[in-house]
């Protein structure tokens, strides 16, 4: 007989709590967006100088936590041409499902601001064109 207490069956409060910072939810949501095809973001430059928009950049996410749920506000860029309403609805559904699955935080609302649209082949350099 071992004298060590059986921690696996102890009630949850006695095993300790789990605190998730809003930054964690932000980063998680940002990474989920980055992995979505045809969705991009804008990297922050120094005072806006050198800001770079591309489909390879992680979109900016702002999280407002309230209890065990949150609302997300995301700034995204999308590939063009693509049906914007359908693409943003896919972003919303994926974020709601995946953020909740990965963090346990329920997503109540996802506000999406579409900041730019760009052909996937153009990339980030507006002065450069690609011969296809």
């Amino acid at each position: 007989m071992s004298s060590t207490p059986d921690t696996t069956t102890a009630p949850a409060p006695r095993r300790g709590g789990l605190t998730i910072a809003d930054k964690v939810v932000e980063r998680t949501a940002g990474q989920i967006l980055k992995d979505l095809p045809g969705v991009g973001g804008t990297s922050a430059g120094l005072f806006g100088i050198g800001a770079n928009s591309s489909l390879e950049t992680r979109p900016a996410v702002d999280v407002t936590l309230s209890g065990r749920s949150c609302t997300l506000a995301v700034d995204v860029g999308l590939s063009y041409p693509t049906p914007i309403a359908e693409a943003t609805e896919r972003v919303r559904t994926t974020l709601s499902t995946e953020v909740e699955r990965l963090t346990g935080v329920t997503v109540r609302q996802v506000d999406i601001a579409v900041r730019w649209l760009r052909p996937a082949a153009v990339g980030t350099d507006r002065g450069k064109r690609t011969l296809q």
Partner: protein
Amino acid sequence: MRRTAAAANRTGLIIVGLIALLLGLAVLAIGFGFAAAFLPSLQADASLDPATAVLALPYSAVIALVVAVVLAVIALRWLAVQVPRKDFAKPFRMQADARTGLTTMNAEVIAEAVADDLESTDGVVDAQVILRGTARSPELLVHIDADERADIDALIAEVADRVAGNASLALGAPLRAVAVEVGIARTRSRRQRTVSV
């Protein structure tokens, strides 16, 4: 492409014209003695001393100053309205259900994408695009600077088919109107400096 203040000018000129017309009629009525039938003091040869006395009152200058400031504000506002403006559509709301969140996009975003799409077309040197209307009923105004050796008919067909089709696909609604203005660029574009093969 840009909207000017034609309606504001018409309204302003009608108001100024009506005021001038009424003042002119009043002066004519006084001069010909018709006004004396209603107000005996309004004779053509009546002394202007009472009016002069009013202007000599201490607060007359203040009233004149206030009136001048009001007129100056109206004049400056009218002048500001004369600046031609692009008059983009209001930000589009594109969400299916607002309870799960809002989707917003400025009209400039789609206009810029359409301009990029146009500039990737053969024969187009530069393009400006304005999107008006609503998300369900958008209107596209396009100005193209085409190369002088470009096939203009083919270019317009390309805009009508591919470019307008792409915009319609992105917005998820048929375009209510597409206006195309074509200019000829005499100088060659120097914007493209690299090519990927």
